[in-house]
C-alpha cells in the first residue's frame, strides 16, 4: 500500500518503538526513502528521545540521595512496627 505523509505521522511513535507489524513497517520505510519531510520528522523525534534519555536532562536535586538514605536510616532503626491500616 502506498502511504501518505499523514498516515506515516500517525504511526511515528509506534514505528520508533518497533511495535508496528512487518507489513506496515515496510510501507513506512518505503515512504521514508523518498519523503524528506517524514524523514526529518522521524529524525527530530528521535533527537528528542535521545535527549530525554540523557541523565543530564532531568537532574535530581543536589543531595537528594543523601537525604533519602538518612531518612531511611531513621526509619530502619524503628523496631518492628505493626503494619498501618491503609
Amino acid at each position, binding site marked *: 500500500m502506498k502511504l501518505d505523509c499523514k498516515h506515516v505521522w*500517525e504511526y511515528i511513535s509506534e514505528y520508533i518503538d518497533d511495535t508496528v507489524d512487518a507489513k506496515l513497517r515496510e510501507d513506512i520505510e518505503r515512504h521514508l526513502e523518498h519523503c524528506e519531510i517524514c524523514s526529518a520528522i522521524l529524525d*527530530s523525534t528521535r533527537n528528542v528521545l535521545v*535527549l530525554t*534519555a540523557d541523565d543530564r536532562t532531568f537532574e535530581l*536535586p543536589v543531595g537528594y540521595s543523601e537525604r533519602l538514605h538518612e*531518612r531511611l536510616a531513621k526509619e530502619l532503626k524503628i523496631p518492628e512496627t505493626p503494619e498501618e491500616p491503609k
Partner: protein
Amino acid sequence: MQQKSKNEAELIARIVSGEKELFHELIRPYERMVYLTVFSILKNEAEAEDAAQEAVISAYRHLGSFRAEAKFSTWLTTIAINEGRKRLRRAKGATFESIDEQEEEKGGDFTPAQLTDWREIPLEALERKELREALRKAVAELPDTYRQVFTLRDLEEFNIEETAQALGINTGVAKVRLHRARVMLQKRLVPFLKTLAPKRRGFFGSAP
C-alpha cells in the same frame, strides 16, 4: 536482567526476614526513577523530594506484601504514583482528574512540525545545554496525563504495558498519550534543533 531480578528477589527475601539494612541497597538503583515519577505528577522539586522519600518509606513498610510475580520496579512506581496523586489531590481538591479527562477528550492538533531543508544533527550538537533546558520546559508544559506516560516510558524506560499498568490505564490509552506527548515535544523542540543542523550550502540558508 534475569540475574538482576534474581538478586533482587534474594535481597527482598532477606530484608523481609530481618536484614533491614539491605533495603538501602535494594532501593539505590531506583532512587532516580522514584523521584522522576513523583516529579512528573507534582512538578515541584521540594514537594517531589518529599513525596519520593515518603514513597520509599512506604515501600519499605509494605515490602512484605510485594509478590515476586510482579516486577519490583513496577510495584515501586505504583507506590510513587499513588503518593504523588495523594498530594496532588490534597493540593488541588478532588477535581483534577475530571479536568484531565476533559483535556483528553478535547483532542487537539497532533501534527508534527514539518521541517524543510532538514540536515541530520551531529550528536555533539545535542550536547548543548539550552537544548536540555528547552526540553525540560516543554515536558513540564505537557498536559499532566501525557507527561506521566512520557516520563515512565521515555525517561524511565518502562515498556508500554508496564507504563499503562503503573498508571492504571489501558495500553491503548497509554499509546495514544505517548504518541501525542512525543509529537508535542517534537513540535516544541524543532525550532531549537533547527538552529543546530548544519546548513545545506554556503551562507544561503535562512538563518534563524
